[in-house]
């Protein structure tokens, strides 16, 4: 097996210290200001996406298909991206908890009725800003417990 190790000087390495640049803190502030101008449309997108996921999980007795779960996972990641331009306390933690839950469901065939409903409802409440940080922490912990329970159920199901 041949391994080639080379030292390469990229354009970024050549250019980034050249004179005429801007203060690093100014660059960060400008980027944050630019992102701030996207906040409203990002919040709209988050609201639309939550509605879409709520529609997909409306029947608590039906396990979403694998392709639906993958779609929900992708939608959660889109919302996480949109969070760069918004500042809704607890939203990122809730989205990651939902993503972990969906990943847990994707790893198993088991289904608990309404497994996704509390997470979707929590997402709505967090987005509206009606919960305090302590309440969000407890409820996100509850979603993670649900994820653990689903993975344990799967473990029990495959034992002889």
């Amino acid at each position, binding site marked *: *097996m041949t391994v080639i190790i080379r030292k390469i000087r990229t354009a*970024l390495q050549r250019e980034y*210290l050249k004179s005429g640049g801007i203060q690093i803190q100014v*660059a960060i502030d400008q*980027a944050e200001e630019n*992102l701030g101008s996207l906040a409203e449309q990002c919040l709209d997108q988050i609201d639309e996406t939550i509605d879409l996921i709520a529609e997909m999980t409306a029947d608590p007795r039906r396990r979403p298909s694998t392709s639906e779960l993958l779609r929900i996972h992708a939608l959660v*990641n889109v919302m996480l*991206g949109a969070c*760069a331009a918004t500042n809704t306390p607890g939203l990122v933690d809730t989205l990651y908890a939902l993503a972990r839950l969906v990943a847990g469901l994707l790893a198993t065939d088991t289904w608990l009725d309404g497994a996704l409903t509390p997470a979707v409802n929590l997402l709505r409440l967090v987005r509206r800003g009606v919960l305090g940080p302590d309440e969000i922490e407890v409820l996100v912990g509850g979603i993670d417990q649900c994820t653990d329970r689903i993975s344990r159920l799967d473990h029990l199901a495959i034992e002889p």
Partner: protein
Amino acid sequence: MVTPPSSQPPPSRINLRSIKALCIDDNAQGLDILSQTLLGFGVDRVIRAQSAEEARAILKKEIIDLVLCDAQLADESGNDVVRWLRRSQMEPNCHAPIFVVMGHALKPEVINARDCGSSFVITKPLSPAVLMQRILWVAAADRAFVEAENYAGPDRRFKFEGVPADVPEGRRMSDKGANLGQPTGANMSQEELDGMVKPQKLSL
């Protein structure tokens, strides 16, 4: 061994004006977030691609100095685009710094992200401060570029914290102590040493 960039004083200014960047995201708003962040950093030329196919076409045509790519694209994984670029041998694009922006990843995608050859994986939501920190790190780092059968990309072994305690002989060639042989001749004189290191005028 890679020189830790933290050993150098961080610069107070940055000049990204002449850098041409490519942002790849299948979501229009995601693309806005990536490009607006770079525009804020002073990057004047930001090209946007909304699919892996579009990104490939741009990378074949233009010289790109920096790539920001979402890990989850509609048609394929962003990590696969990175792997393709690293293997493409399209210089200088194949060596460009690539930052993959990733939300929650399913297990196979985590391994894919590790092995695709990106310079850094940044978790969502993207924060300008974190992206700037990573850009400065990549720009200052003396990371080698590795091309092997199963991997092409920046050397992943950049967190060099000495020889592992459980492997006293080390894992790398440079971990092993160098054995110096006995001197084979007389020491060089100062004049000879000066002749080696001082610039000499050459007239043709």
